[in-house]
């Protein structure tokens, strides 16, 4: 954290960044989860905004998807757990349980 490197002497600390940064995240939903796409989406994906450092779990709550529905979560084509922190520009793909082959 930048704060810990600060000397504590007033006037010597660098300017702190704003505590709330807004990240733009692409959310992609499949099969039964497409019911949660907002109006005007392209049938699969939409843009969401969320605070800097938010997790996948927080994103799912923010966009109104019940937490128990997504079974498989990918960020930028890598499978991750719900506790993973997101970065600005990430693509999050969510799936219910599925299989085939």
């Amino acid at each position, binding site marked *: 954290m930048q704060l810990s490197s600060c000397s504590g002497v007033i006037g010597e600390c660098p300017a702190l960044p704003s505590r709330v940064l807004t990240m733009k995240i692409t959310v992609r939903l499949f099969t039964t989860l497409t019911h949660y796409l907002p109006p005007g989406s392209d049938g699969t994906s939409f843009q969401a905004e969320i605070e800097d450092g938010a997790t996948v779990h927080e994103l799912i709550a923010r966009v109104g998807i019940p937490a128990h529905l997504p079974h498989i979560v990918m960020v930028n084509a890598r499978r991750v757990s719900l506790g993973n922190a997101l970065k600005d520009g990430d693509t999050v793909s969510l799936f*219910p349980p599925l299989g085939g082959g």
Partner: protein
Amino acid sequence: MVGMERVYRVDMTGLSVREEELPRELLEFGGRGFTSSIVSQEVPAKCDALSADNRIVFACGLLAGTQASTSGRISVGTKSPLTGGIKESNAGGTAGHAMGRRGIRGIIVHGKPKEGTHVLIVDAKGARLERRDDLRLAKSYSAVGKLRDSYGSGVSVILIGPAGEKSMRAASVIITDVEGRPTRHCGRGGTGAVMGSKGLKAIVLDTTGATPPPLRNPGTFKEHARVFAKTLMDHPVSGQALPVYGTNVLANIINEAGAYPTRNFTSGVFEGTGKISGETMHDIIVKRGGKPTHVCQPGCVIRCSNIYLDEHGAHLASGLEYESIWANGANCGIDDLDVIARLDHLYDELGLDSIETGVAMGVAMHAGVIPFGDGEGAIRLVEGIMEGTDIGNALGHGAKVTGAYLRSDHIPVVKGQGLPAYDPRAIKGMGVTFATSPMGADHTAGYAVVTNILECGGSLDPLQAEGQVDLSRKLQIATAAIDNVGMCLFIAFAALDNPDTLKSLVGMINARHGWEMTVEGLMELGKEILRGERRFNGEAGFTAADDRLPKFFSREKILPHNQTFDIPDEELDRVFNF
């Protein structure tokens, strides 16, 4: 003994049929266990696959003909003309249950006639061969129509199309579905070419007057069958996702994972996936009055098949499946489901493996025969297989021959068999299975996608090398065991998450036959089957060098992950250390 299962031995040289009791040592072997046992015991490993010395074996599972859901797969086994090794390929449809109801565990065909096109008829009187030269080179819909006219509208048919009669190495064995259409394929490994080499166009199974097989403990059987079906229905994959979207529900997730092989395995992401996905296909089927939910075999509760109609409402395909859609779609840069369904219809008519022919097409497009994405061009090339054009003759023999003919250095095959719809650089567990399965590159042989992608039965990062060999080994053993029962592999989703699935499965087997088999005992049979298949391949000349992916997978990185297949050879050699 009443209810004793039987075996038919069909001699195509002498054109005669002999009935035998099921040998005691084969009692516990059904499906793949039966076919691989016969092939490894009776076929000279070094024989020419299309010679009289080879055998082609048809077998149903241990529960065929009963009320057990999903138990009617039929296995076809032989020495493969595509791989040169042992082959088992299985399908749904009506024939597995029909064999079960007739009390037949297996049909073993050997020899070769001097001339003629022949049909094996199995009915209440027994089994007999009839000469049917009128069916020579008949496309499959026409052949099935004539056979139903001759032997009854309710018969189940196992047949080959013209590709099999022409001994093409991508030729399938077709099984009629519940509507009597020739749509379900034992697709892989060129089994149709072996059937064709024996002058056997079809096997007709008439179950008129037949009853379900006897059960040793009917009450116990019924209870286990109820629990078994309930575990399938309760699992979200087999109970919800598969019935609604079919197997093609995978297109989007495999693409999102960067593992959807595109344009002959040159990318892991296909920009046209949204147009050929399971969700899009579902909407098209519903809009045109087809069936998004459909059984491929009688009595299956999963119902993952479908009926796909063209824009005028005419039937094109039954069971347009994920692998076929991928092979002829993303793999060829084609994003039009109607084109893919028309290709699938041609494969039904000609009796061709939709995976092998699609992979061969991808190789041909990569070599510049036609551009990637040229759907009408692809249809013309497949029509050329029937007409006997040069490129058609190459395509009909699969990806390896097509690549050799076109002097390609980018041929995605293992042991001569085309890779299915998962890039081994992005799902490394599948790479292990493709490399090491005795069948050649076969996705069903050890479906690592379950834990690599689907979070079913555990979780393992698809891009990490560690752990994939152990995973593939475990899955290859379990798959051989399930194939031995004649169950559809899709029971595995429930079985991986719920111990009651396998417990009730074994309970049904014991109640049917009066045995005391355990789940562990069933898995031991899986190991025995794999050991026998490996032994046959060894005698046929296969070495560790054949348990490898093509070199380009370890040299060329693929987007989006920029990965190669990096599991060391010595790790691959540990798969069968049991």
